[in-house]
């Protein structure tokens, strides 16, 4: 394990300290917690709180700031934060207009955030929650914990952050989220698994000539292991899955995200984006916006994911609304 760390058990605390050090003009840490909250809170705006296990940087703290998240709560690596931490996040974020929790669909995250919601409501704070489940690699969602929440969550952060900034009420932001989430779908591929510092070895092993389609952002297994494919072949597979899931129709508008999983250079992400472009040229849909980069990573996993969001109403405008966070 080649990592620039100290004690594996201390990585989250030290990372948060480094994050605040680097961004102290914009954010602060709620003392004795793993909550990062923006400094320039806006009274009367709906607050957005997200988070989950650590290891997905820049998600989620890198998206805290004007126009996106109000606070981010970090658990241990790949482990949901506990209800009391999320509660601290809710309390720190509340700007008097209620709090929306944006949760990636994992059993642990859902239960911990839900308990925090109950605790916060008992303290008189209005809280809504939105569970993002964009990973279409999990097909059979009636016999599983359901589709996982992955990179598409970032689109929810961005658009609902813009909506909150525009002054929508908690109810309106939540309704927009309910409409948005089913329109977001993602699918990924991994060349290597992530190594959790406290575990010290990769979550699974891929041979030098192997890769796996559909892997989750905590090294959950995918749907197909195969020999290494070219970027163009990978684009064909991933676009194909998304096309089937959306059933592309004429004149539909989409937004697109190519997400690096941690150890994949930007060069490769752009090459892949180009292959996605070539695949989509044959389709009747129109791509309104695109973003490429490391947004929802999985520690040092080598791989990429592709997300599409089917746009409605003024969603593209929300995407382009200005934002002031560390990693946009």
């Amino acid at each position, binding site marked *: 394990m080649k990592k620039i760390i100290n004690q594996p058990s201390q990585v989250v605390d030290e990372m948060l300290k480094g994050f605040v050090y680097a961004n102290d003009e914009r954010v602060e840490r709620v003392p004795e917690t793993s909550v990062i909250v923006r400094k320039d809170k806006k009274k009367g705006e709906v607050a957005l709180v997200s988070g989950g*296990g650590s290891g997905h940087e820049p998600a989620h703290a890198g998206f805290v700031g004007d126009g996106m998240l109000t606070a981010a709560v970090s658990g*241990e*690596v790949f482990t949901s*934060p506990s209800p009391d*931490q999320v509660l601290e996040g809710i309390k720190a974020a509340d700007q008097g207009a209620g709090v929306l929790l944006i949760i990636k669909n994992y059993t*642990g995250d859902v239960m911990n955030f839900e308990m925090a919601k109950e605790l916060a409501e008992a303290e008189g704070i209005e809280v809504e929650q939105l569970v993002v489940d964009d990973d279409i690699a999990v097909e059979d969602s009636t016999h599983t*914990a359901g589709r996982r929440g992955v990179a598409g969550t970032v689109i929810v952060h961005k658009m609902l952050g813009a909506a909150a900034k525009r002054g929508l009420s908690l109810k309106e932001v939540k309704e927009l989220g309910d409409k948005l989430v089913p329109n977001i779908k993602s699918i990924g591929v991994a060349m290597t698994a992530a190594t*959790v510092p*406290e575990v010290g070895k990769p979550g699974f092993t891929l041979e030098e000539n192997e890769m796996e389609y559909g892997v989750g952002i905590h090294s959950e297994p995918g749907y197909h292991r195969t020999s290494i494919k070219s970027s163009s072949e990978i684009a064909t597979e991933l676009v194909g899955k998304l096309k089937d899931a959306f059933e592309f129709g004429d004149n539909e508008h989409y937004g697109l995200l190519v997400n690096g999983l941690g150890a994949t250079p930007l060069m490769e992400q752009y090459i892949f984006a180009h292959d996605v472009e070539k695949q989509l040229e044959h389709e009747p849909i129109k791509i309104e916006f695109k973003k490429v980069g490391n947004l929802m990573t999985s520690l040092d996993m080598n791989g990429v994911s592709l997300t599409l969001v089917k746009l409605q109403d003024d969603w593209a405008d929300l995407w382009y609304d200005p934002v002031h966070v560390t990693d946009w």
Partner: protein
Amino acid sequence: MLTVENTKAWLLRFAEKVEANKAHLSDLDSVIGDGDHGNNMARGIKAMQEALESKEASDPADVLKNASMALLSKIGGASGPLYGSAFLDMSKQAKEDASDVSAIFRAGLSGIQKRGKAEPGEKTMVDVWHPVIKALESGELTTDTITDAVEATKPLKATKGRASYLGERSIGELDPGAVSSSYLFEAWLEGED
């Protein structure tokens, strides 16, 4: 009958077992989950030990409540809210009646199921809690019951929690949360000798 002393002693034995099997639990979780169950549990029971030592408890319900809060705030992941809910509901039941241990455990199971919505057979910790409590209620709980329950999670296909993403591939492996739950019951039985 739960007392402050035997409850504390029981939970400390549980803590010892988890600590001793931390790597084993994480290894099991690596196979069908994300490899952190041992670390999660170890973090939680360390906080629980500290709470048991530092916090005053006037009755066994208090002990269970302190344990619940520590587990809930330190385990994280899926098992944190589950153990936390189990201990919270056990505490509530112990407040009512500290003498009926089966009823206390039954309340714990119901806390787990309220929170996690798993039925028996979904390859979760429920698959240890459920048969163990049944055996306890009919006065037939032995270490074999516990071991058998754990072993019985092997052929199951996971349909809840992270292991469910493996589908068929989850068959043939032990459920990590079932194993950590078995330590709780083994620790209990050892106090009964």
